[in-house]
């Protein structure tokens, strides 16, 4: 398969340059070539006018191009100090950077496994900065970061620019691109389709270039207000408590409704979703599905009660070596009574219907690991469409997904709600909440501290509430 056909990318010294494109546009392939993981079939790469051929990631590093990849590049079982030693990175410089990111208290003797994902991302960044690269490549580093930590990334990128060096910045968040980047190169289908200056109202142009269609066509698709909900709630949570983080959460979610959940990192949202999906048992409180109390010992119990989970980490939910079909049909064989002969025709029809509804690109359907990130996420959602459910639990489903696919996913959530499903949506992108949700609840310190109609929930209001600040009047000076 050809992922990249004619990609041009020119990055100036003293510039933060965005590299953009829908999932499957060829960004990852280009990044792999820039960093020496893949070798190009044709074309050339030059740094400061010198043509380069990278035979390995190490060669790229020595030439001054250092990258922070999509996933943490740290050995989980080693401590931070040991990880730094592996790559011969001076720990003092890393510590300095981490101090600037607000992690001065981080103990370098901690095993990486025990650290939360956002911390790992900032360690990755600090490590890359410590190598003093001429070109710093940040591949979706902010995708897993809450807004407050993302600010540190922007600051570091700006500092790099002021030193006359370059940053290649990959992200799906248009707002941060507009605020941070000087220019943006847009890829579509493996070809560079344009170079845009995002600050000067270039956002819509970027979207248009990425989608290959005028912006109107991609605008909020089919987002209608849901019918007035009635009857018992599809899901009711009463005084739920779990571990240290989830203290006391109650809410009701009706059929036909999308409830948004906004929170900074680690306010108990993971625990809440784990409890609802049967992955963890709550310490106290009750979960009611369609009015009936539930005690989940296994995700199978939650699925039987109609609660299904789309986790943030696609890798966790997929069978990378198996086909799109097998991935989607997986819950259909979950029970003992499904162990016999497979009803191939019926199954194929169900899978095909789900693939059609989600517009999954099936060109690389033989192995899910070869699909783009957005398509992989669609496969996870398609699984539940094929299997059937009452309440869809989406945990940050658009993390690291391009804008076109994001809109498709939000439109799909609206559509599901319109056809009678209930949706609980946690998202780390506050600006997206009004796009998909009817109501929004804000979680802080393991409790719901605010609730409001999504229509009036602008980013600033949500962010204040998510920091535990009650009202506008109390906003910090």
């Amino acid at each position, binding site marked *: 398969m050809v992922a990249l056909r004619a990609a041009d990318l020119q990055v100036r010294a003293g510039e933060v340059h965005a590299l953009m494109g829908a999932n499957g546009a060829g960004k990852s392939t280009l990044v792999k070539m820039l960093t020496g993981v893949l070798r190009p079939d044709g074309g050339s790469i030059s740094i400061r006018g010198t043509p380069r051929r990278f035979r390995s990631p190490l060669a790229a590093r020595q030439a001054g191009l250092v990258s922070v990849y999509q996933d943490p590049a740290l050995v989980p079982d080693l401590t931070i100090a040991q990880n730094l030693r592996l790559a011969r990175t001076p720990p003092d410089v890393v510590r300095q950077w981490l101090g600037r990111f607000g992690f001065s208290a981080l103990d370098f003797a901690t095993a990486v496994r025990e650290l939360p994902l956002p911390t790992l991302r900032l360690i990755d960044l600090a490590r890359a900065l410590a190598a003093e690269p001429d070109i710093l490549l940040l591949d979706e580093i902010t995708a897993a970061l809450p807004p407050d930590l993302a600010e540190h990334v922007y600051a570091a990128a700006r500092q790099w620019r002021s030193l006359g060096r370059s940053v290649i910045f990959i992200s799906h968040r248009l707002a941060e691109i507009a605020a941070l980047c000087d220019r943006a190169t847009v890829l579509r289908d493996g070809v560079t389709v344009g170079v845009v200056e995002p600050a000067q109202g270039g956002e819509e142009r970027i979207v248009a270039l990425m989608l290959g269609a005028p912006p109107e066509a991609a605008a909020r698709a089919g987002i209608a207000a849901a019918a007035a909900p009635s009857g018992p709630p599809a899901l009711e949570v009463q005084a739920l408590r779990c571990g240290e983080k989830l203290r006391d959460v109650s809410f009701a979610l009706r059929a036909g409704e999308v409830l948004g959940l906004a929170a900074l990192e680690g306010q108990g949202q993971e625990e809440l979703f784990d409890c609802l999906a049967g992955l963890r048992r709550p310490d106290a409180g009750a979960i009611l599905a369609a009015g009936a109390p539930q005690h989940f010992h296994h995700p199978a119990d939650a699925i039987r009660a109609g609660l299904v989970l789309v986790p943030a980490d696609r890798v*966790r939910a997929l069978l990378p070596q198996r086909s799109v079909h097998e991935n989607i049909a997986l819950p259909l064989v979950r029970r003992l009574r499904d162990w016999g002969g497979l009803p191939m025709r019926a199954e194929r029809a169900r899978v095909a219907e789900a693939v059609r509804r989600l517009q999954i690109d099936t060109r690389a359907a033989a192995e899910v690991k070869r699909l783009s990130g957005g398509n992989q996420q669609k496969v996870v959602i398609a699984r539940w469409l094929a299997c059937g459910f009452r309440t869809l639990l989406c945990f940050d489903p658009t993390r690291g997904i391009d804008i076109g696919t994001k809109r498709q996913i939000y439109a799909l959530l609206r559509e599901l709600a319109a056809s009678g499903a209930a949706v609980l949506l946690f998202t780390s992108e506050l600006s997206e909440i009004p796009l998909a949700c009817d109501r929004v609840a804000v979680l802080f310190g393991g409790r719901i501290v605010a609730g409001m109609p999504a229509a009036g929930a602008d980013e600033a209001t949500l962010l204040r509430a998510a920091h535990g600040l009650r009202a506008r009047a109390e906003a910090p000076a």
Partner: protein
Amino acid sequence: MTLAAFLRERSLLVLALLLALLVGIITVVRPGTVTPDWIANTLLFAVPLGLMAGGETLLLLAGGIDLSVASVASGAAYLLSSNAAPLGTTLAVLLGLAAGLLVGLLNGVGVAIFRVQPLVMTLGTGLMAQGALVVYSQKIIGQEQLVPRAVATLGSGKFAGLVPYALFLWLPLALLLILGLRRSGFGRLLYAVGDNEAACRLSGVRVWRVLLAAYAACGLLAAVAGIVLVGTTNAADLSLANVYLLPAIAAAIIGGTSIFGGRGGYGGTIVGALFLTVLDSLLTLLNAPEPVKQMLYGGVILALAAAYTRLTD
């Protein structure tokens, strides 16, 4: 398409060509060896290996492995031959099968429920089975050892003097395994569990059930293999099937089943088992001394496994 890509897509074909090459070498080195009779015997000798490798295939697909198959096969054979006289053929066969199923279930409980590492668990049960067998053999010293006629026929007889009866057992089982892996819910789950256990759990699959059933099936298949084998040798001893342990796993791996789970199938394992059987017979024909034979045999297995792993990753 590059050569590497071709080999990757058609690895089974390549293995089949290598198998044909081996047969070719035999006809050159010892003309007149390859006769219908030789083919029938080769197939017959491949049956116990193919059955044990079948169990290993199920487990490798699911991300497991079983190092107790050889002990189980030996044990089933020994239990059968030492109880055939007092209990009769049917009960003795059932006793052998039950022993295999029991060890398989034990492995399954250890790995699936208590989450013991499969290598450790099955190495342990294998040693325990071997030990129990020695104790048992000392208890029943002096008792008549008998391989029932039906079992001997299964293990060495040929229909119309040409087609080994063992094939009438192997072929349906092979068909069941191949079809079952492709077209049954259990087969689908073996691949899924081997590929990503966490994803299975999220999808509502109770992983322990799948693993338990897979280990039980592997134990049972090993017992069947032991019974066929004792029919061929016509005498059980305590280490009857021990030489089959490495080949059983190797047949699955050179047949294209990934040792990391999630990829492969029984069709490849069958070709792998035939390949190893023919290789063994070639080395015997060359009159290689036993140690040299073992070294060559091990070397070829390692080379193939390494080549395969390089190609598929």
